[in-house]
């Protein structure tokens, strides 16, 4: 690469630095963006991710969204390791949405696994460039200079130069081809695989970390929106007189009604614009809106679930089949069937959605807590009739995401309103907005039937799954579970059962359906891992042993070869096989860590579940205690994870802890609707895990592995609900197949 190209690239980086500087100018990101001296004259940026300043500061650009998984720290660890940077001199800046970074959609537990090599190359390329600069300075062969911990040294002469001192020379050299630069041997990793502390922790504890709710712009107004209570409803009549009379309210704006499909578009409704948050909130309360609820007003959860159950009882469309399930069922010694249902769920991140938009002449700038800055950019551009290049999307910290913030609808609202009123506008969602107008984790009904032979072996397995699919949000005619969702714990059933048939059934969506941490894995793991326990009980076997038998001998499943539509999370099956040996291994590990055998002998109520998702393997044991009134608690939970190579052991541990707690929330929460309107509105009626209900201890075991890195953020969630339900069965004899599990359970009589 020529020096002039390099220079223009640096200018581009400076551009993004200035974009961030706009946030900096309001004084909120102090400490986060210490761009030292003049970045053009005093820095070198060999690639998109690394800039080295003359003062030695290494600025690492994080292109993935930070929502608590500490990806900003992990990306810095990966790059700094190969760069041999001194960790104390590393600062992280956040990338705006731009396709030049490749995929930025921070979901699917793929930030590390899809970027591990290229980020290592980014660090190694920069290190190589610095070595070349030093070799040229000293006029010595490059293989005689070494770069470690921010210093390049020439062994024979003892000369050394700091990274910052080499910047000016390095800036004139061609950037090495990343594919030719050697990467470190695993044994030489300095930061990768270590429990490096989060780079954002000090700002968080100081109360200065900036989330979307905290963005402040000169002249900014706040918008709170009354959205249609029923999806695709519209305003019939509006009286905004009282709202406009509230001091601080400057405008009331009708947003265009939403036409199907919902996709990522704004929901419509009436926005109250005010000079303060309080005025905007009061203004919305004062609106008198009469709604036309539209076609979804017929949606009521009880009857809807009954219809889904009926669908699950009837033959569906076969998506995977081997052996002869019907004959095997007919010949079985015992037949067992069970239905499992889960309600709609809301992701409910602690920070509800929020976005700020500001128009500059013919461009627009957005600040949002978005998991997906590029689709935010495209969707905002489309809504405003602009080109994507006219839209800048700055990514703030996210106060939780869990999939809700993969949908850019709230940024579209801010953009439409900023254009309408002519000042910067911050849209905030209240908790009620978040709970009542979400993109919900789908409601589901499943039925599994199995046959057991005289020796207790499962010989037949027939599983049907029915749920309104996520594609319905983008095409309302979609009613069949998509292969993209079936691959999440359904099509990839790992059991070694000779006769197995999987079927799907249709259900129509009446709300926006979207991703939630681990997505369809949550309900598929709940059904499969609960039923595995039911089979163990029927066969009078230890549930852990029986689960291992169901999984069978170590082998790699090749579903595509068997004619199943299965894309392995978009990753190659030879690199990330469905390895039943690894699944069995985490079960054995968690059993050992939880003292499975001795605790069961002592009469403790333990439940186990194991599930592969996002290419990782997780097994969970939950121990419950139930008091005389039926109140249950979890004195201990145990998690074993095999996620291949891990970048930060403490982050993985934290995700296993938090993913378990999130899985518990999935077991106790429920969103329902009556006449199309969501019944719940806040944390009083939408239950999420609180400290007193959470496991008192969570033991996490990370399997040491040199397999390629796999997913971490989502895999710990799916096994928790079935492990809990299984433990409650052990404690009470009551089987909870229909979630939510009440906080007070019944004992079987």
């Amino acid at each position, binding site marked *: 690469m020529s020096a002039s190209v390099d220079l223009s690239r640096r200018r581009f980086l400076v551009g993004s630095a200035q974009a961030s500087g706009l946030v900096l100018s309001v*004084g*909120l990101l102090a400490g986060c963006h210490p761009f030292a001296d003049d970045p053009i004259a005093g820095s070198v940026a060999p690639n998109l991710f690394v800039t080295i300043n003359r003062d030695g500061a290494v600025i690492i650009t994080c292109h993935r969204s930070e*929502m*608590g*998984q500490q990806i900003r720290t992990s990306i810095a660890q990966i790059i700094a390791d190969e760069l041999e940077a001194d960790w104390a001199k590393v600062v992280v800046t956040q990338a705006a949405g731009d396709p030049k970074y490749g995929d930025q959609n921070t979901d699917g537990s793929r930030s590390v696994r899809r970027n591990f090599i290229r980020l290592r190359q980014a660090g190694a390329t920069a290190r190589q460039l610095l070595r070349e600069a030093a070799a040229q300075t000293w006029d010595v062969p490059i293989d005689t200079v070494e770069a470690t911990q921010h210093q390049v040294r020439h062994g024979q002469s003892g000369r050394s130069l700091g990274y910052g001192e080499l910047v000016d020379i390095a800036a004139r050299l061609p950037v090495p081809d990343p594919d030719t630069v050697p990467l470190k041997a695993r044994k030489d990793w300095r930061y990768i695989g270590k*429990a490096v*502390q*989060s780079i*954002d*922790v*000090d700002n*968080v*504890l*100081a*109360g*200065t*970390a*900036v*989330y979307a*709710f*905290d963005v402040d712009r000169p002249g900014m107004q*706040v918008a709170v929106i009354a959205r249609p209570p029923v999806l695709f409803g519209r305003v019939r009549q509006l009286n905004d007189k009282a709202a406009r009379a509230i*001091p601080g309210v400057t405008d009331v704006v009708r947003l265009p009604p939403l036409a199907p499909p919902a996709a990522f578009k704004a929901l419509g409704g009436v926005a109250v614009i005010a000079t*303060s*948050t*309080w005025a905007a*909130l009061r203004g919305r309360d004062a609106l008198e809106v009469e709604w036309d609820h539209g076609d979804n007003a017929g949606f009521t959860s009880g009857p809807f679930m009954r219809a889904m159950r009926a669908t699950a009882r009837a033959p569906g469309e076969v998506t995977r089949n081997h052996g002869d399930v019907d004959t095997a069922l007919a010949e079985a010694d015992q037949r067992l069937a069970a239905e499992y249902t889960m309600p709609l769920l809301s992701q*409910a*991140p*602690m*920070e*509800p959605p929020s976005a700020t938009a500001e128009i500059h002449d013919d461009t627009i700038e957005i600040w949002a807590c978005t998991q997906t800055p590029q689709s935010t950019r495209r969707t905002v551009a489309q809504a405003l009739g602009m080109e994507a290049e006219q839209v800048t999307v700055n990514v703030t*910290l*996210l*106060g*939780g*995401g*869990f999939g809700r913030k993969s949908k850019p609808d709230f940024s579209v609202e801010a953009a439409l309103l900023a254009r309408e009123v002519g000042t910067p506008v911050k849209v905030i969602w209240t*908790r*009620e907005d978040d709970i009542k107008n979400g993109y919900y984790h789908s409601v589901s009904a499943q039925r599994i039937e199995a046959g057991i032979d005289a020796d207790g072996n499962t010989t037949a397995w027939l599983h049907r799954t029915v749920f309104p699919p996520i594609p319905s949000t983008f095409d309302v005619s979609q009613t069949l579970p998509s292969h993209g969702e079936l691959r999440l714990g359904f099509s990839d059933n790992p059991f070694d059962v000779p006769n197995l048939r999987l079927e799907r059934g249709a259900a129509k969506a009446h709300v926006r359906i979207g991703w939630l941490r681990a997505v369809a894995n949550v309900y598929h793991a709940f059904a499969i891992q609960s039923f595995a326990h039911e089979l163990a009980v029927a066969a009078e076997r230890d549930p852990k042993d029986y689960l291992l038998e169901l999984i069978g001998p170590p082998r790699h499943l090749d579903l595509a070869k068997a004619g199943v539509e299965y894309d392995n999370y978009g990753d190659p099956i030879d690199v990330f096989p469905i390895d039943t040996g690894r699944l069995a291994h985490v079960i054995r590990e968690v059993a050992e860590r939880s003292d499975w055998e001795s605790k069961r002998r002592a009469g403790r109520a333990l439940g186990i579940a194991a599930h592969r998702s996002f290419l990782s393997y997780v097994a969970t044991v939950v121990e419950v205690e139930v008091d005389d009134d039926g109140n249950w608690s979890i004195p201990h939970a145990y998690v074993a994870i095999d996620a291949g190579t891990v970048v930060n052991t403490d982050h993985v541990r*934290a995700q296993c*802890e*938090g*993913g378990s*707690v*999130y899985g518990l*929330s999935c077991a106790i929460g429920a969103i329902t609707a009556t006449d199309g309107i969501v019944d719940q509105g*806040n*944390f*009083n009626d939408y239950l*999420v*895990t*609180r*400290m*007193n209900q*959470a*496991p*008192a*201890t*969570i033991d996490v075991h990370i399997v040491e592995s040199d397999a390629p890195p796999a997913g971490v953020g989502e895999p710990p969630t799916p096994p928790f609900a079935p492990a809990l339900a299984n433990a409650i069965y052990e404690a009470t004899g009551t089987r909870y197949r229909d979630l939510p599990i009440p906080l007070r359970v019944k004992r079987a009589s």
Partner: protein
Amino acid sequence: MKLTVNGTAKDYNGDPQMPILWFLRDELKLIGTKFGCGRALCGACTVHLDGQAVRACVMPMSAAEDRAITTIEGIEGGHPLKTAWKTHNVPQCGYCQGGQIMQAADLLARNTTPSDADIDQAMAGNICRCGTYTRIKAAIKSAAAELS
């Protein structure tokens, strides 16, 4: 009306019914106190009013007249709770943690040797969707040991 925020005297002449939260955030730009629910159900907005934990999202400005508010920004960096939070790597997304620390400070002011049950009871009103509860509990115990 007059009040004190983190040791500094402040004046306020607006709507006495406005929750303290919006005074802190919109007017003083103290963004460490967070909105989570607006109904005292999640604890993300917890501040101290004359040393006692309150939910700023529902507490009207009228209740703060001639009183002292402390926010997360008013707890110094070397405070045993902040130190313990860092030692245990408690925060994930971090959004609720200011409120968690303010609630924990209230607990430790009343009880320097809290049991697990005491901690559960005191902290049950503070939701963390990232699920950092076991670490919060460990950090509170570390800070308690430091303080007692």
